[in-house]
């Protein structure tokens, strides 16, 4: 049996996923405009996972993990990559089926492949979040992370959101049969100006690797971390009532911005190698505290 269509570029996979999830009734959102370590950090997941309101959303999220930088020389590892994130709250009973169909939508015919749900519980110590689920394997390749969120910011999720995270580079390499990420066709290879992933990102991978590991000014970053932490706390210690309008305005998302900024700065400091193992725990728990107060503020703001 031949596939009915042929996917031929990285960007087409992103478009197909958006098209598919849009059809399932998801909001198609845009990436969050602050550096994050994973799609989960987008407020559309972290904050919307809390509270009672139903929420179906999907979006692309550029993600940064400074420690994973390899100067663009490793065929599989990048410090900047794309995740495709879907959040379905409450998790529908046919969520696995929806997921399998999404694979079909991007050209993986699961009648010819071995799809496996292998236990993998997810935990984000910095977000105070955890859930149970699987990593999804396609012919031995991890293509997605599938999680039923149980807690965020230390607060129980009820209803429970189901979260699907696609590692886009890996899936694209798999579908397009490419062994080195830098060789992935980014746009249609038959375009007027065909570009590969490396044409777009190789140079910046090298630049960030050097900066993350050796150059980043850790004194400045450490100050940033402290400033971000203070600002997050300060925002949420304001009175709920806005004196200008007399309305209750709890500034959850501005505070949460500073929480994720702190988290990202911590990741750079970690890559820079200036954090000892015990200090590491301490940093993580400081970020977690910020996530916790943001989560609590979100619940309160939703109640108002």
């Amino acid at each position, binding site marked *: 049996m031949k596939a009915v269509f042929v996917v031929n570029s990285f960007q087409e996979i992103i478009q197909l996923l958006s098209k598919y999830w849009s059809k399932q009734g998801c909001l198609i959102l845009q990436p969050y405009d602050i550096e994050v370590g994973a799609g989960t950090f987008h407020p559309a997941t972290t904050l919307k996972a809390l509270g009672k309101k139903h929420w179906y959303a999907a979006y692309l999220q550029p993600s940064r993990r400074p420690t994973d930088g390899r100067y663009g020389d490793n065929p599989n590892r990048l410090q900047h990559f794309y995740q495709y994130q879907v959040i379905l709250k409450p998790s529908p009973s046919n969520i696995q089926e929806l997921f399998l169909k999404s694979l079909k939508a991007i050209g993986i015919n699961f009648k010819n492949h071995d799809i496996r749900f292998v236990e993998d519980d997810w935990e984000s110590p910095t977000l105070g979040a955890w859930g149970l689920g699987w990593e999804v394997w396609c012919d031995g390749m991890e293509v997605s992370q599938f999680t*039923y969120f149980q807690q965020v910011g230390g607060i129980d999720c009820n209803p429970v959101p189901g979260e699907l995270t696609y590692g886009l580079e890996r899936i694209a390499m798999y579908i397009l049969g490419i062994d080195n990420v830098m060789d992935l066709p980014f746009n249609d290879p038959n375009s007027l100006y065909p570009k590969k992933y490396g044409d777009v990102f190789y140079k910046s991978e090298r630049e960030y690797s050097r900066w993350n590991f050796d150059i980043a000014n850790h004194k400045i970053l450490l100050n940033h971390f402290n400033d971000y932490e203070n600002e997050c706390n300060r925002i949420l210690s304001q009175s709920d009532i806005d004196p200008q309008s007399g309305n209750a305005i709890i500034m959850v998302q501005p505070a949460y911005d500073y929480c994720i900024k702190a988290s990202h700065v911590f990741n750079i400091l970690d890559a820079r190698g200036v954090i000892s193992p015990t200090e590491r725990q301490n940093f993580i728990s400081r970020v977690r505290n910020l996530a916790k107060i943001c989560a609590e503020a979100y619940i309160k703001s939703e109640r108002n």
Partner: protein
Amino acid sequence: MSDLILEFYSEEIPSRMQLKASRDLKVFFIDGLSSSGLKYNKIETFVTPRRLTLFIKNLSKSTPSYYEEKRGPRVGAPEKAIEGFIKSLNINKSSLYIQKEKKGEFYFYKSLHKGHSAKDIIIQITSDIIDRFPWQKSMRWGEGNLKWVRPLKFIYCSLFESNKKPQSVNFKLNEIVSVDYTMGHYLISDQKIFPKNIEDYKNKLFANKVILDRNERKTIIIKSYEDLLKTENSKVIYDDDLLEEIVGLVEWPVVLLGYIDEGFLSLPKEILQVTMKEHQKFLSVFNNKTKLIDKFIVVANMLADDGGKAILEGNSRVLRSRLNDAKFFFEKDMKIIKNKGLLSFKKKLKNVTFHNKIGSQFDRINKIEKLSSKIAHLISADTIKCQKAASLCKNDLVSQVVTEFPELQGTVGKIYADLDGTDIDISNAIAEHYLPVKHDDKVPLNPISVVVSISDKINTLICFWKIKEKPTGSKDPFGLRRCAIGLIRTLIENKLKLNIRKLIFDYLNIDELNDLFIFLEERFRVYLIERNYDHGVLDACLSYKDFNDPYLTFLKINTINNFKKDNNFKKLTYSYKRAINILNSEEKKNSIIFSKKPLSKLFEEKEEEILFKKITEVEKKVKRSLEKDDFYSALLSLSTFDNEIEKFFEKVTINVDNQDVKFNRLNLCNKVRQNMHLVAYFSYINV
């Protein structure tokens, strides 16, 4: 009589939890049915990644109804008493009847206890299971409040009587509704299945690509790979843990054989094997002719339209990229060994933190080296080899391969040492000093490995006790409990006498030392309780405050345990009890502990004299035996003064007016007690 099928159908249950779940399901029903009194013939349970199934054969339709007879007041008793009886049962006087008994005529009432139907009992047990099934981890989903290991989709529950239509058992538990059908392999078949009986259920599942029995799945996998390899002059390296994990990942195993690219065959086989096992769940295939791992077995859960071609291609590609990584790292390491030698790794350990309050891995190695040479000396092992092995044992932590595959620590160290031409005892020690890694792992047995292993473990314990980072509650981030039990097991299973308190004495202050030994003693106790040792015997030997030498204490415990079956043990406890009973009561009464030496000049009866002489004699013998760690002889000696004791208590009155004489006699009893306590606190042992 009817048969029952109950199936909990869910999303994928983690492989490692499946076997326990099927056992727990069985226990729930055995307990539930036995407490309800419902009769049955046989219970079986099965588990696949998506379902947990129970069969009950020949289940009664209900529990029998029965009458209970209640006796009321005597005929002619005051009206109030009769009224009270009627009221308490909530009945009319007309339901009472009179019956004659020996003591006269009484009112009686027969109350009917109605039996429960099998359906009700099954629903009750199922509801219990839903409420409190002991999953290691469970979760909520959607908008419900139910908890299960992963979302539970439905419960299929049906009763079958021969030649009758299946009777579905209908219930609703929270948001889960029972149904009268089940499903096959959800990726292959989307039909609903309506079984007619247990056999039909199995057959229909099979037809819809589900093999219910995990053992059958395992057999099929083994048979299939053997068939595939018939003409290949190769064999699968049997790995039961991995097979057990795989049968929990597939409902319909499809076994495929793949070839490893030639470029990777030069990699050490341990690296190949671990890469394939840990990351891909592949079984390694060993070529008998070339003596290399050159193939792999992958077990898919899919009967693919193209016969598995795409699946094998995909898996091969993933493996290639994994092995590329591994090869890249291995070659980088080899280059360093070739150019700078194996010892160059050690310097790099200076930059690797063991723990920021303790120091680097380099510091750690130095400490292990020193301990190793001390211990080697104490147990007469080859000091030079032990020291060399210790100095190399953590080198691989800075290798590229171990950084990438931490589970290969030790293994890689050994491979590199071998490639560098190191003595085989030493390279074995590098690999084996980590043992036991898992709960049921073997301990090291080669003397060099044993020395390095216990040195490493003792050093770890010392270091963490010094910085006061000991395990609390369920938290043990540095694996210190495992470390302690590993140490204890290694000493015991090697029959190694070693006074570890003396050894550690120089490194810790007295409070830290005592605290560490309370911890070690607790681990030791857990180790023996798991092996069904008697708590009393453990208490008798461990209340001793001199848990210094785990193997020696173990020897003592074992000897007493065996001695308990001996006839002499009765004699020993007889003497002990006589002495201790009177001492306990007199010590309480007089608020003193009798611990003085008995004085011969205060003896008035010859039985006192004889007992004292005997005790002195026994004491010498016991002490001599204990010096030789001969606990059996010590126990034998302690069982020899039962006659003297018996005569003593027969002829001598302890409670006399002369307090000096009385106390002297009690001091004599204490002597008996003291002697016994040279070996153990026998009062803890139930006899």
